[in-house]
């Protein structure tokens, strides 16, 4: 069930309480990812089959897609994967502070990716006229990338909860009593911060895509997004305040496996994107 040793040095590649030495959670995650491969196989097959036989008057993806933005978000997702990997190494070495920072960065990158995707969808719908219910391309494209986006969103939520959880006070910490309500507040603030970030990212991308120069873009951006930017900054301030140290916490090396399995999920979402990026976007440009 759970590992007995909580303080002694932990070998992160061997859990003596299981038959194989692989921690249960890790095994669960790998099995789930094997299953998730099949989910995406079904979705990608659907998309590709319909790309193989597009309806005669269907949309041309080359007209719809905008490769720059997608390349950018691909890059961001790769970087988030890097941060995730660093978070895992950090907690494995017991470096809680570094782990938290890496988690936050991962979350942040994840939000940028989501922001780009939301922007992309909105752009495709309103500017390029591709809706989920007006073309087969829209149908399969939005469903496939949307499912991936949902995976990212769930990942972000998971990361956020893990981040907040890392403040759970250890047994004996007097703060433990009031922690529960504090924890709720923390979650809510983080979610608000994330949503505002999303809004701001959207605004920024929009500005960059519509304005000819960087200066104009920034002007546009600050003009329209000022309130949200301010709100986001306040929320971040709140997060920093909520995260002030309050005695020993119940989150340490022993929790590395939690972070690690979450990381596996996150990386998987990343590699699915690697496939989607090639199969859905790049192949269209040949």
């Amino acid at each position, binding site marked *: 069930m759970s590992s007995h040793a909580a303080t002694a040095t932990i070998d992160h590649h061997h859990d003596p309480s299981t*038959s194989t030495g692989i921690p249960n959670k890790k*095994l669960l995650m790998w099995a789930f990812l094997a299953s998730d491969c*099949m989910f995406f196989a079904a979705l990608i097959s659907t998309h590709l*089959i319909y790309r193989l036989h597009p309806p005669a008057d269907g949309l041309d993806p080359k007209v719809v897609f905008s490769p720059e933005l997608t390349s950018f978000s691909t890059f961001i997702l790769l970087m988030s994967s890097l941060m995730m990997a660093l978070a895992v190494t950090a907690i494995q070495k017991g470096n809680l502070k570094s782990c938290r920072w890496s988690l936050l960065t991962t979350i942040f990158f994840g939000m940028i990716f989501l922001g780009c995707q939301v922007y992309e969808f909105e752009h495709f719908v309103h500017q390029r006229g591709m809706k989920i*219910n007006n*073309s087969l391309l829209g149908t399969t494209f939005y469903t496939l990338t949307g499912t991936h986006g949902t995976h990212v969103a769930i990942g972000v939520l998971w990361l956020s909860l893990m981040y907040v959880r890392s403040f759970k006070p250890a047994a004996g910490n007097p703060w433990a009593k009031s922690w529960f309500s504090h924890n709720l507040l923390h979650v809510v603030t983080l979610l608000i911060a994330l949503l505002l970030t999303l809004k701001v990212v959207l605004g920024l991308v929009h500005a960059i895509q519509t304005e000819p120069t960087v200066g104009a873009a920034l002007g546009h951006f600050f003009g329209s997004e000022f309130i949200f930017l301010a709100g986001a900054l306040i929320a971040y301030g709140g997060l920093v305040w909520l995260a002030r140290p309050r005695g020993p916490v119940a989150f340490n090396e022993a929790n590395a496996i939690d972070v690690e399995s979450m990381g596996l999920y996150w990386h998987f979402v990343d590699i699915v994107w690697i496939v989607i990026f090639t199969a859905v976007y790049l192949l269209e440009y040949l």
Partner: protein
Amino acid sequence: MDALAKPAYLTHEEHAPSQPKLLVHPSAKTGLMSWLTTVDHKRIGFLYGFFALFFFLVGGFEALLIRTQLMVPNNDLLTAQQYNTLFTMHGTTMIFLGVMPLSAAFFNFIMPLQIGARDVAFPRLNAFSLWTFVAGAIILNIGWFLPSATHGAPDGGWFGYAPLTSKQFIPKHSIDYWVMGLQLLGVASIAASLNFIVTIINMRAPGMTMMRLPVFVWMTLVTSFLIVLSFPFITIALVEVMMDRQFGTFFFEVSGGGMPVLWQHLFWVFGHPEVYILILPAMGIVSEILPTFSRKPLYGYPIVVFSGACIGFLGFAVWSHHMFTTGMGTVATAAFSLATMAIAVPTGVKIFNWIGTLWNGHLQMRTPMMFALGFVWMFMIGGFSGVMHSAAPADAQQQDSYFVIAHFHYVLIGGSLFGLLAGIHYWFPLMFARQVSEFWGKVSFWVIFVGFNVTFFPMHFLGLNGMPRRTFTYDPNLGWNVPNMIATIGSYILGVGIVIYFVTIIYTFIKGKRAARDAWDGRTLEWSLPNPPPEYNFRVIPTVHARDAWWYEKHHREEIEKERALHAKEEEAHGGIHMPFASIWPFVASCGLLIGAIAVSALDSNPAPGIHLKLGLALTGAIIMFIGIYFWSLEGNEGYHLHLDENGNPIEDSHAKH
């Protein structure tokens, strides 16, 4: 439920933990709350079995209505609509709410005992699977109780071929129930299977190497793999249908370029592994029963295991044999035809090895053994008609005829169901500490056996004589009257047999005579336990020295005693027996899923305020689920410890968090 009542030491007052109210662990050991919050794999297994048998009776009742309608030509007992609903629900119910959960009941109850574990790897995930399965069952059946003009129970056939399931052809909500119901069942099955995979791979007792696992455990493992790898396909396919119905997408919509045949591929990529999901657990059970009652190890254990895995994975390469008549072209047809035939080889290997197990044995003809032998015979016949289907040209005549109905009822009833009924009899003494009457057990077997054959054997002839399936009526001039009449009478006999079976079981459950420990002179670890097994299963985790671990222990008593005493000390030094806390949160999460699924499937988006209500309720469901999962994750891996003396009496019990 006295038989399942827990020993007295579990009714202690809990220490009040210094935690906010919401995080206090439920401590009820009896009553409704204890069942809703249980994380004990045995209780969860029991609940799976209870619901499965209930739905099996419902599905059987539907079958009897079907048969009654077909008893005579041009019968008008049922309308076409009702009939179509009945066969759809009969198939769906039997497969997803009858046989699969009944198998899951055994996985839950027996598998951890057989590998010498105290629980599954993720007890609360297990509870979540159970309740999500119940939620799915509710959604599937909810249509019966709503107006049939706008709602109604599903009526698109159990494989719901597009585009019949589209809004255009079936505008009412019946299909939405089918989609969302199956979706929840998929979530439940995948979650449960992931749990079983981790449990089997990681929670084995020391010495229980993979090649010492009981065959039933192996089949659980293979089945679980099949589930996690095949359900995604139907999940995505169902998502696509749902999108088509709710958001006007074009996945299977011809006017937008969609290809309905894609649904068939996505469905059968799932559908064929699914039929092995239905049979492998039964094969596992039979592979336990035959050795026990032959008093001899399973013949050719490694090859039986290997062929099981082989069947499982070959099963992914044959799906298009359900589509021989969809005009796939010669090459594809030939390829799938040959691949399908190939499956007969590993399956045959199992049959041969079962016979090998009997050979030179001392066969004890007890009820479980009768069902197990019935399984071998009937499954063989069903398998042979499967091979006839696999020859594509012959199948062009058989597909969608009663020949298929005959084939799959032979493998499903004569196979899966016989195996599961055998399993109930076999493990009954262990589960409920009661011994089922041999006489009534055998009576029920023979009535079921005869009724089954009388029902389904004539269907081969019906099919070859051109009777298509899913027809609510037929003309009297086609030569189908007599076999149909016979089949219907047979189904009544079968019904009587089932009733005898259940009455016997229920009677035994309430008043049966107490069963001795190790009632059948068993071979695997579960028989080393007292009956019913205590909540912690093993006082001391056993060390396994041989394939039939308990048989070995029985023949090496002294050595084992010594080893056990030593290990007891060691475990005590490590803090005693770790038990997980009960938890209500998995149940809450499932309730959230249920509410969300009802919102998506039962509510109209228009007229006017509809969409708001729908979104609102869906969101409510999502939030409840989220809350459930959140609190569940806050609980962490906490549990308490038990300390027992040699006789299994508590020394003291303390709570410790982990």
